[in-house]
């Protein structure tokens, strides 16, 4: 399965808006949302029902067996995360517990057990007409993990084994989950915006992608909001020989389209026209294959 991955670095650049349009224009039969902290793609994919849900387990957390606990307080004293309180009984703050397992190891009466806890929910949608869509949502207080991203992609690959290609809305930022999203990606489209932080995150993603040998392309969303920084992004791409596939203007109609449950490719608006051109260029690079 060939994979087109859409990334942004900083949030709010319009990554999901562009991903939604690409999915619509390509009529792809397999897609995934790897933005597990704040998944949004499902809001425009419009699958019926809840899909097939499964649990994502993060690091285990400590649980106290009150029948055995003697309230000696050793665990509370040793815990570096201040996660254990000994008052009327011994309690573990599940948000503070990082799952190191030290308390379990040192408890003199074996009253502590590390138990797998659900840190997120995976969902898989399979529709005869639309194809397969894989997504996940982390629960509150849990940090992003490359593992969940990998699981989102694995369930997509399994359910859509015969799909020729897939479009994936990637993780935000520049850390481990981004690298997990890039695994197996043939082409990475970076959707950036003309701001200082947008520019700097874009360069970091391009560097990472180079290490993973994926083809890259860049487009600038809301390009007219700061034409000077847009120019600098364009020049940067030219110098590094990264294909610069277009600019999308700020467009209130784009906001309206998304709120009406449409993608910007579905409506006649300046942003829609721009994204159609970008789509053509990206698909040419994508079909060209991998380095």
């Amino acid at each position: 399965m060939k994979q087109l991955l859409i990334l942004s670095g900083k949030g709010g650049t319009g990554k999901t808006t562009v991903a939604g349009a690409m999915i619509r224009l390509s009529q792809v039969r397999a897609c995934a949302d790897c933005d597990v902290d704040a998944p949004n793609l499902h809001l425009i994919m419009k699958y019926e029902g809840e899909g097939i849900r499964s649990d994502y387990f993060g690091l285990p957390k400590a649980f106290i067996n009150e029948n055995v606990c003697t309230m000696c307080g050793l665990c509370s004293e040793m815990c570096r995360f201040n996660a254990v309180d000994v008052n009327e009984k011994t309690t573990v703050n599940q948000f503070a517990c990082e799952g190191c397992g030290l308390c379990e190891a040192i408890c003199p009466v074996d009253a502590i057990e590390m138990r797998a806890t659900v840190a997120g929910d995976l969902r898989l949608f399979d529709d005869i007409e639309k194809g397969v869509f894989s997504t996940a949502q982390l629960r509150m207080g849990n940090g992003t993990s490359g593992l969940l991203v990998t699981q989102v992609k694995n369930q997509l690959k399994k359910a859509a084994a015969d799909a020729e290609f897939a479009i994936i809305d990637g993780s935000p930022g520049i850390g481990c989950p981004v690298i997990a999203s890039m695994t197996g990606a043939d082409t990475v489209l970076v959707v950036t915006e003309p701001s200082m932080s947008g520019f700097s995150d874009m360069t970091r993603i391009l560097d990472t992608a180079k290490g993973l040998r994926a083809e890259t392309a860049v487009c600038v969303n809301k390009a007219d909001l700061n034409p000077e920084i847009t120019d600098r992004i364009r020049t940067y791409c030219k110098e590094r020989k990264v294909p610069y596939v277009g600019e999308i203007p700020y467009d209130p109609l784009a906001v309206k389209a998304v709120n009406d449950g449409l993608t910007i490719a579905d409506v006649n608006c300046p942003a829609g026209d721009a994204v159609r051109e970008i789509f053509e260029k990206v698909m040419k690079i994508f079909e060209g294959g991998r380095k």
Partner: protein
Amino acid sequence: MKIAIPVNNESENPDIAESLGRAPFYMVYDTETKTSKTIYNPAQDSPSGAGVKAAQTIVDTGAKILLTIRCGDKAFEVLDGAGVELMEGFVGTAKENIDAYLGGKMSKLETIHAGHHGHGA
């Protein structure tokens, strides 16, 4: 000499896995006995540090050669520190990769990607 390869399943001739740390299994091929065995990768479901744990697993098999498509910096540090040589594998079956390596048609893995690993909590 033993050669390790990250693979997608336990079959006789599985495909190479794209990811090193999160590969489901490793195939270990012994060039002397011309036999192979497949071991489970305990790191694949690890929310933190899959690369390090996977590398430890590979080192513990006694393999001195690893054929892989990619490798993160921390896994590399473990493997390299244990004297495991990394060769650049390609999308295909384990057997195709082993044949290419034994036929001298494989080059060293040049790019080691950054980890930037996140905590699981």
